[in-house]
């Protein structure tokens, strides 16, 4: 077991810069997620840690030792791929035992370890089957078993759940997290799915275009996005231009065109670098639609529902307030508002954050 550290790591493929100056630590025993849209460089980072790609610049440290020049087969890492990559010509037992053969483990110990690994992933007794005889979810469990049986220093997972269907994916993510927690292996998990990242991670690294956008605990990244990219990537957000009218140690007062003045707690305000303008971010889930005449104590303004996207327990509303359209995700109790209905749009000042305007 060991932590991982990237120091000024950069990777270019010819003219394409896939990863720009990465400085980040993955704490020993922690579960860290690299989250970002397709093509933002997540896989490239994972492959550099694995030793499948050499960084163009910078150092990679595992357990405090620089490993840039250590070939992959000497790094002692567990690797799990999206498409499982189980050896099709070998049985499940042989697949799991594969890494043990290179580790001076005696024959009888190999059998025991394979059995224990299959127990951990809750698929006992499938040693003699071939990968093609298992379902996708089962194959991914075997891939995990094959990676953890060698007791790796670091477990690297590249979108391991993306090939599974929705129900199985949610089940597997709970289980994967439980297994990781139990064996306590430092894990780096790659995904483009924000709900996966929020559900599983100790720490999330949000990436875009090869650059880190924000590093933090799930609730931190979710509640206090560092910039508009993060605000929008982790669920839908409403963003409006505001002017700062006054500020003190604990709060900052901003003027909005639609909702009048709002007093936002200082902790939710990013460094505006002295600017008098900024952007107010309110998550769609934090925006409430009320009956046109109702008030619930938050900031509010009258609006009109323009469209409803009914999703069962939840409805996504598109509402117009003044000249801007807002998104609201609300639980439905009773009947959802219909398009054309006049409503009161409300939210709490402590649920907003203020970001600087990006040039």
């Amino acid at each position, binding site marked *: 077991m060991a932590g991982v550290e990237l120091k000024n790591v950069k990777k270019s493929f010819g003219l394409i810069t896939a990863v720009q100056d990465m400085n980040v630590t993955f704490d020993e025993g922690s579960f860290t997620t690299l989250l970002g849209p397709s093509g933002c460089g997540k896989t490239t980072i994972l492959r550099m840690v694995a030793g499948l790609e050499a960084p163009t610049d910078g150092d990679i440290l595992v357990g405090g030792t620089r490993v840039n020049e250590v070939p992959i*087969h000497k790094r002692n890492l567990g690797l799990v791929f999206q498409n499982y990559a189980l050896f099709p010509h070998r049985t499940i037992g042989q697949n799991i035992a594969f*890494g043990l053969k290179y580790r001076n483990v005696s024959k009888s110990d190999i059998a025991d370890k394979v059995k224990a690994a299959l127990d951990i992933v809750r698929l006992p007794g499938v040693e003699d089957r071939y990968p093609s005889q298992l379902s996708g979810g089962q194959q991914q469990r075997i891939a995990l078993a094959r990676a953890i049986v060698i007791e790796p220093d670091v477990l690297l997972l590249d979108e391991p759940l993306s090939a599974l269907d929705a129900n199985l994916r949610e089940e597997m993510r709970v289980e994967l997290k439980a297994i990781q927690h139990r064996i306590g292996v430092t894990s780096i998990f790659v995904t483009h799915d924000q709900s996966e990242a929020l559900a599983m991670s100790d720490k999330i690294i949000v990436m875009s275009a090869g650059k880190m956008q924000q590093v933090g605990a799930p609730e931190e990244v979710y509640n206090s996005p560092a910039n508009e990219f993060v605000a929008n990537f982790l669920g839908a957000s409403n963003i409006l231009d505001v002017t700062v009218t006054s500020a003190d140690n604990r709060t900052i007062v901003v003027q909005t065109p639609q909702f009048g003045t709002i007093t936002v707690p200082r902790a939710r305000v990013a460094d505006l670098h002295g600017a008098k303008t900024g952007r107010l971010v309110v998550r769609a889930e934090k925006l409430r639609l009320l009956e046109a005449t109702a008030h619930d104590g938050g900031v509010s303004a009258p609006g009109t529902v323009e469209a409803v996207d009914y999703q069962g327990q939840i409805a996504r509303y598109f509402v117009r307030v003044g000249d801007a359209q807002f998104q609201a995700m609300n639980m439905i109790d009773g009947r959802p508002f219909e398009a054309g209905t006049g409503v009161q749009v409300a939210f709490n000042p402590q649920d907003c954050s203020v970001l600087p305007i990006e040039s």
Partner: protein
Amino acid sequence: MRAWKLIRLYTFLVYVFMFAPIAVVLLLAFNSSQFGGFPIEGFSLRWFYRLAENEAIMRALKTSLSLGLLTALASTSIGVLASLALVRYRFRGKDLITTLLISPVLVPETVLAVGLLIFLRWLHVPRSFLLLLLGHSIIALPFVVLVVQARLVGIKKEYEEAARSLGANPVQTFFSVTLPLLMPAVFAGSLFAFTISFDNITATIFWRPTGMETVPTQIFGMLRNSVSPEINALGFVMIVITVGVPLMAGGLARYFARKKT
């Protein structure tokens, strides 16, 4: 409707044209007549016995078989390694090397044969079995490379990466993962190579050392005197080897594949 009938007739005639000569050889091989032609007088295996007693032919057969096997071995080994380099690695001059490896298919065999011969003269290297083997391997190599490359492209490199992450060094990865997954192509490629070598006559005539005969050159030599019935029997043996070996191999491969799953 009429058009379809004509097409059917035409197709039939094309097949007759292609396979009649082979059928004739197969039939005449068992003809008891003195002469290597029609009419068929009776069934007999005497020409096969005569064949077995003919030392020159047996020597040619042995030469052809060992040449074929060695060609298969050499071109497959080189072909697999070349395919690996071409498919799995990026390097300068890759396109040029691909073209060079494939070019023996495109160059007329006579030109290739004369070219190699002149080159060896210039180096003062005498003709030998080894050179013949080298030549056959050059001719067979493109087929091996094409077959193996096609398969290798289909083998996801994640398998190899998984193996390496689990502790296998590149050589161990090749033997434990890549080669087993590549086996059907290796098998098919070496069969191709064997058949190509076993059949070859044009280039062989140029390259063989004086006094050495392969089965095709031996037949060619014998035909210059007369069409002996022995040649029909020999033709039969060649057809059985060049058709039967791949069929048998295919059958075996399928049998083992079925046993596995």
